[in-house]
């Protein structure tokens, strides 16, 4: 059984925009990333799945149950984008309230509360009113609310948007920990490096339609393109580079030879640097030239009119 499954799920707003024919699946224990520019339909898609919007077509299932049933969300956590919680409650009251809505009894809540607070680094702050929390703390409180019911499927809509680099790292670690526990995580983000670091599979959405989806390896290709700026390049060096990969471009700028080489996998990249050093060359620049998720994203999104 899939943690999440949609078939041609559609939401058409009266204005004509929305989300059209989205079909995808997420396995238990998988971290899936949905990428897209602002206004592409990412949040609309998630809102349909968590019951905030009524789909106008297609179907969706959460943990085997149709999305139209409130019970489908019993083991689902959701951290909304730009969320707000009732700030007249303390963090503990908020957590207890939302857990009670998920059907947890008081004993379960008491057992899970310290664990979840520790996970989001808010242990000791549970007695404070939510309104006294910083933006980053509120974001972590939101994550705690999503985690406390012990979800098997977790929707995170731009979870790190309000966080500093340390907070982002903590969230990434939490996501990976949840993955290890078999929790399926659906990550909605436009922070591509973040998605690359935690997601096994991604989908790119633009203008309400999925443009591509699959594993990162499949989408980015098995190969890797490296750009090198070499001083003192010799013919022997160029031949060795050609044996390691395909040199598809080379230009000379003064003493510097600029070379772009495509290798079949990531493990071969250090061999290129080793070859330069062994042949007496000086490596001024050594970087990945293409095939980042960002390049793929830009490729898919540009050429089409941005929705926003």
């Amino acid at each position, binding site marked *: 059984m899939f943690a999440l499954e949609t078939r041609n799920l559609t939401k058409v707003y009266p204005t004509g925009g929305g989300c059209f024919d989205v079909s995808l699946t997420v396995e238990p224990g998988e971290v899936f990333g949905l990428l897209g520019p602002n206004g592409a339909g990412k949040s609309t898609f998630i*809102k349909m799945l*968590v*019951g*905030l*919007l*009524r789909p106008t077509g297609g179907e969706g299932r959460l943990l085997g149950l149709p999305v139209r049933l*409130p*019970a*489908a*969300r*019993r083991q*689902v956590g*959701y951290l*909304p984008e*730009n*969320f*707000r*919680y*009732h700030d*007249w*409650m303390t963090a503990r*009251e908020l957590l207890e*309230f*939302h857990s*009670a*809505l*998920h*059907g947890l009894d008081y004993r379960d809540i008491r057992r899970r509360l310290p664990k979840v607070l520790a996970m989001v680094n808010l242990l000791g702050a549970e007695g404070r009113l939510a309104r006294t929390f910083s933006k980053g703390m509120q974001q972590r409180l*939101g994550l705690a*609310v999503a985690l406390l019911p012990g979800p098997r499927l977790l929707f995170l809509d731009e979870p790190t948007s309000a966080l500093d680099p340390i907070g982002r790292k903590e969230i990434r670690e939490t996501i990976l920990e949840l993955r290890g526990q078999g929790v399926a995580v659906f990550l909605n983000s436009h922070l591509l490096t973040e998605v690359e670091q935690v997601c096994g599979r991604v989908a790119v959405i633009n203008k309400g339609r999925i443009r591509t989806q699959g594993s990162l390896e499949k989408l980015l290709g098995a190969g890797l393109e490296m750009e090198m700026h070499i001083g003192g390049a010799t013919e022997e060096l160029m031949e060795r580079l050609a044996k390691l990969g395909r040199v598809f471009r080379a230009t000379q700028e003064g003493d510097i030879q600029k070379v772009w080489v495509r290798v079949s996998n990531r493990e071969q990249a250090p061999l290129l640097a080793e070859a330069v050093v062994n042949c007496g060359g000086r490596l001024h620049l050594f970087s990945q030239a293409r095939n980042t998720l960002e390049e793929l994203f830009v490729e898919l999104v540009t050429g089409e009119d941005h929705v926003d």
Partner: protein
Amino acid sequence: MRIMWIKTLTVMMKFALREVLRKKVLVAGGLLTGVFLFVFVLGLHFINEQIHGKGFEQIAGFQFFTLGLYAATFLIVVIAAFAGVSAVSGEIETGTAYGLLASPVPRSQILLGKFLGYAFLLVVYDTVVLLAIWGATAWQLGVAIPGVIEILPLLYLETLTMLALSFLGSVLFSSLTNGITIFLLYGVALLGGMVEQIGALARGFSTTTVTALINAGIITSLILPVDALYRRSIYLVSSKAGGITDILHNLGPFGSLSAPSVWMEVYAVIYLCACLAAATYLFSRKDI
């Protein structure tokens, strides 16, 4: 399943009660109600000084009780309208709806739980205020108004009808639009009720005029039966006033010369249920 339903309603009721307490609504409401009752007692005290021993206590007592009930009804209805005016729209406008409505609880239970929480507080408030007015009249003028227990359910019905309408408006409109709409409707109902009483008093006018004035009141009662329920309360109380009943019925626009029948109570119950049913249905289908 039923246990889960009751549990969720209880959670939402507690939430509504806690919100009222935490936002200091209860403290502010309690203090200002205290001021209202103080002014009422002060009025009774000075009237009593003027009429004591002259045999007018009975009339003054009924009239002051009617006045107190009118003012209390106004207060209670306004508080009920305020309580519900942003019950749903406020959650959406502040963004708190996202976390709340993504829970596995049907929206109907969220709405009904909140409604019951507010309703519980308002019913307690109604009881306290009505008994305080009754007690103050008895204390200052020595007149124990009969039939108070009978009109208590009518006061509850007025309150809950207004609260239900306010909840429905909160599903349909923004908080501001809902607030304005609800108060305008109440204004129309109040005015319609007064026009109806004037029609009943204007016996010297042509039949057409009298009928038109009374019908105007009946129509506004159907639009919002809150004022009609007040008139029925006054009618029930003054009907038990013995020899001064006719005097009390002729209180002009504030009286109940043209009194609504018991069917208005039935209509109000149906109206309340219809508002709640419409609110839950529309809320369940609303895109957030």
